[in-house]
């Protein structure tokens, strides 16, 4: 029991906590979250669960726990993405930046850089001109998503993912005249 609480669900809650904590923690770790933060997010999950214990209708509490954990995880990633977009701009004349300025990379040949940027631009245009379904599948594939993850994200079948990727790659080869 949670001492001092005297809540009506305490014994059941403790049982759920002990049964599900490890699984929730591994879920956060599977999403590449560091050990300490994974524990923090797991504790947040169970704190929210405790506040909503009266809403659990089924004998199996896992779907409820999983929904809370997923909401917490998505909120965490969404907040980070939004923070990045609204990150504070730093003055380029900031003296600290001047002193901390990293060594300049070795200068490459101008012609090489021009050629490289031309290739990037061609690929970028070719990808942008793909039909939306193929483009989204290809983009996720470039990000390193597995086929089963792409099916989940785009809500399409495995066969559809495979055919879209095959068509997209063929289109790019035609457009670029080479193996991308």
């Amino acid at each position, binding site marked *: 029991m949670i001492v001092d609480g005297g809540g009506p669900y305490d014994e059941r809650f403790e049982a759920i906590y002990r049964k599900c904590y490890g699984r929730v923690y591994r879920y956060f770790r599977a999403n590449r979250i560091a050990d300490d933060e994974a524990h923090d997010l797991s504790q947040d999950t169970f704190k929210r669960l405790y506040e909503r214990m009266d809403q659990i209708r089924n004998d199996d509490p896992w779907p409820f726990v999983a929904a809370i954990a997923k909401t917490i995880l998505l909120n965490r990633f969404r907040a980070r993405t939004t923070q990045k977009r609204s990150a504070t701009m730093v003055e380029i004349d900031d003296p600290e930046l001047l002193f901390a300025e990293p060594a300049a990379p070795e200068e490459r040949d101008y012609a090489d850089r021009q050629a490289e940027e031309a290739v990037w631009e061609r690929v970028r245009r070719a990808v942008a001109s793909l039909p939306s379904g193929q483009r989204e599948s290809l*983009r996720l594939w470039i990000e390193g998503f597995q086929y089963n993850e792409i099916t989940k994200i785009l809500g399409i079948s495995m066969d559809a993912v495979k055919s879209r990727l095959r068509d997209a790659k063929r289109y790019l080869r035609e457009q670029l005249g080479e193996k991308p």
Partner: protein
Amino acid sequence: MKTTMNRSDWQAVRDALIADDRARLGEPPSVDELLAYERGELSNENAERVQQLLVAYPELARAYATPFPSDDAETGDPDYLAGDVIGRQWDAFRAANRSVAANVAGGAAKGRVLQFWPSVAAIAASVAIVFGAMLWQAHSNALRPHVLPEAAILTPDGGRGGAEPPQAAITPAGDSFLLVVSLIGTADYETYRIELVSSQSHKRLWSSEPLRVTSSNSFNVEIPSSALPAGTYQLIAYGLRGNAQEQVSTYTIDVRRRPAP
């Protein structure tokens, strides 16, 4: 000339495409939208938008797509937690969340204790009703005809040739008193402005908007009795022409309190 794409090339293209998408599509989808998308509750149009946003925000897409691990982890599996580790986490949870537990327990006993927010809401509703009634009454009074008190006709100070400024003695008998400010012997101005000033503190208490002169060459000023405590005040008339103003006359009044019956 480059002929093949290596990993860093793809990375550069990927970054550029993501930047393009984010600029075009805006903020990532909300968690509620994502969960609705997962349940298949969005319209085709909205579902398509969420798909595009997930492509534009791959970190979020990864979190969305990562499945839950199975329930059969064993010692030696990655990130497996032994029972004693979970026990320590449980102890930490209990220590950190006693107030939560107390609140939840209080929530379960709903009806036995006075709930704070419902009480505040009830008080706020009562206050709103009282103010509403007062406002309605004031509005009704404003629509009714009422009789103005007898007017005190003011003449400019020094207008009678005396050394001492004349003082119009006023004893308010009702809620307000009426002053008739007469413009005698003043030059013609486009408009006039009247100020009320305390003679003691020289503080300006009120100033009118620019006023067009009437056929009677006077202005009627009604002052709430409660606005002026007993004392000496001056009404000052300014003539306005363009952006310039000139003080044209002053009227001193002596406000007295009505003796108690």
